[in-house]
């Protein structure tokens, strides 16, 4: 504890809680309230109802949940495999070239995702790379936006792995692939899970690029939420937001419970 006195500590906590409530609690609370309100004219909504949730869990909205989960899983899985591969491949590089490459990897995250979507749209709009109007272009957009984070997470994990484990494995007769499978990957499993969780969460919430490239038959939840609020169906949009948040949380909590035996010594 940095603050020693009892009152000082109480004040610090109170301030932190207040800040937290205003910055996080308020917007989420408002959406949660909106999702169950039939009408909202005063300070608090009136006519509580679960009708919006019923809407959110059927028809188009249910289909969007399905699309989002599917996109999130596939894009994150592909990003995890390729990000891990890249991190392993670039590990032996010297410091400076590695730094430069790291920067390059993160550029897609630094530009607005709308621009990434636009870029993909233009790039893949004529043969032989004609991907416009396909599901694949949505997956590619998500992959481009999240792969830097998976790469970053996995290479951070590899950087923290003492080289001795792999060297001892090697001297005991482990060939490179065996060593990777039995030593390196198990020891960075927590980082792999963190990488997948982050990518999945990013993908579930992705709007900017998806809006530019999505085909009519492949509408993700954020696109659906955007369309609903655009039409003025605020309460339905709020309910769909809650469904999105809850389903993402369930997946993330599930991921965090994957047992990893690779705990630190």
């Amino acid at each position, binding site marked *: 504890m940095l603050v020693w006195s009892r009152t000082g500590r109480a004040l610090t906590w109170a301030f932190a809680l207040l800040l937290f409530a205003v910055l996080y609690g308020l917007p989420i609370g408002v959406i949660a309230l909106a999702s169950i309100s039939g009408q909202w004219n005063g300070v608090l909504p009136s006519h509580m109802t679960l009708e919006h949730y019923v809407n959110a869990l059927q028809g188009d909205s249910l289909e969007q949940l399905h699309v989002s989960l599917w996109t999130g899983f596939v894009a994150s899985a592909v990003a995890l495999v390729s990000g891990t591969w890249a991190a392993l491949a670039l590990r032996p590089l010297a410091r400076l070239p590695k730094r430069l490459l790291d920067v390059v990897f993160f550029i897609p995250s630094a530009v607005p995702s709308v621009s990434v979507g636009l870029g993909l749209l233009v790039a893949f709009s004529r043969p032989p790379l004609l991907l416009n109007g396909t599901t694949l272009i949505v997956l590619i957009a998500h992959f481009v936006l999240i792969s830097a984070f998976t790469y970053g997470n996995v290479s951070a994990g590899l950087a923290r792995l003492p080289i001795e484990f792999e060297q001892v494995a090697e001297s005991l007769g482990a060939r490179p692939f065996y060593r990777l499978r039995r030593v390196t990957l198990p020891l960075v499993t927590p980082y792999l899970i963190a990488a997948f969780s982050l990518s999945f969460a990013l993908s579930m919430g992705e709007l900017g690029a998806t809006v530019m490239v999505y085909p009519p038959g492949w509408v993700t939840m954020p696109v659906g939420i955007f369309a609903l609020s655009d039409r003025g169906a605020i309460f339905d949009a709020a309910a769909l937001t809650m469904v999105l948040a809850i389903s993402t949380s369930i997946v993330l909590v599930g991921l965090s419970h994957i047992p990893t035996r690779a*705990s630190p*010594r």
Partner: protein
Amino acid sequence: MPADLAGTANAVPAVVRVGVERAADRSSSGIGFEDVTVAYNGLVVLDSLTLAVNPGEIVALIGPSGSGKTTALRAVAGFVRPVRGRITIGPRDVTNVAPHARNIGMVVQNYALFPHMRAEENVAFGLRARGAAADVIRQRVPECLRLVGMASYAKRYPRELSGGQQQRVAIARALAIRPQVLLLDEPLSALDAQIRRSMLDELAKLHRELPSLTVLYVTHDQTEALTLADHIGIMRDGKLVAFGDAQSLYRYPPNRFSAEFLGRANLLPVQALVATGGGMARVRFRDGAFVARNHHALPDGGECLLCVRPHDLCLAPPDAASNALTATVKSVQWQGDMQSVELDVDGHLLRVSCAPMHAPPSPGAPLTVHFSATQATLVPETMVRG
């Protein structure tokens, strides 16, 4: 230099000699360094190392931190590639062989037990990696754990073991693959003093049980080296500055650095050497003269160092032909069973270890110390080879 190993064989304890002979029938392998040079980014950290570890022998490489000991070990394991020279294991040149194909057991400083595997899985790792049959694994894993006294800890994870226990498992893991050579890098440095002492005894016992195992042991601790090793190599700045069997290296250090590093010798600069026959020589120190062993056959007339160990300096003449030296007392320290006295002779520090005295001298007082001619050795300032 490896050629003179044969000449020192009679100083090797009998147990180990039997081991070497038995090792020979079981075709155990030695380790050879021939002119091995390793550089990191152009900076030479191991400089033309030539050294032979005979089959079944324990060789300790000692030296201060940064002297290149670990680098030498890693070159044998294959984790650094020499820019020059050859490394052999048995008859095989392994200089360009991948680490996984070298058949080496290695124990690193922090053990590096795989944290996600139980002790028995750690020990089985090398066998599994080599595709050993299930019944071989079932038989050999408990056998190796028993050898290091860890049979009852087979199901534990490394984090559930103490440092000393982890160390034993690491040794069992290295031995399970029946390696031709065992490489140990400061295996005891992470343990506290008491456990270190008992692990040292156990390592010695282990080698008696596996006499054909060739061991290269890296340490900065001279006690470990003197206790375990048949031969000791002393490293400094990437170079091997001394090599020999433990006893003669201690008694007749070949240069100043090894005299100081191995057993903190007292060294006094002496002149005008005259050989007096019988391997002895007379030298001049200030206006007096000493007689000492001239083991290295230093030439007449030259300058060199007189080397005498702190416990060989006594307050009473040990024999009729002893040397005497008067110096000024600098400090007196009582250490329980020992009295440690520091003397000053013409600006040279002289350490004396003796039995506790009833009336210890006080600082500033003159004190005459004696040493037998046979306990003092003449040492050249720099390298003598062979």
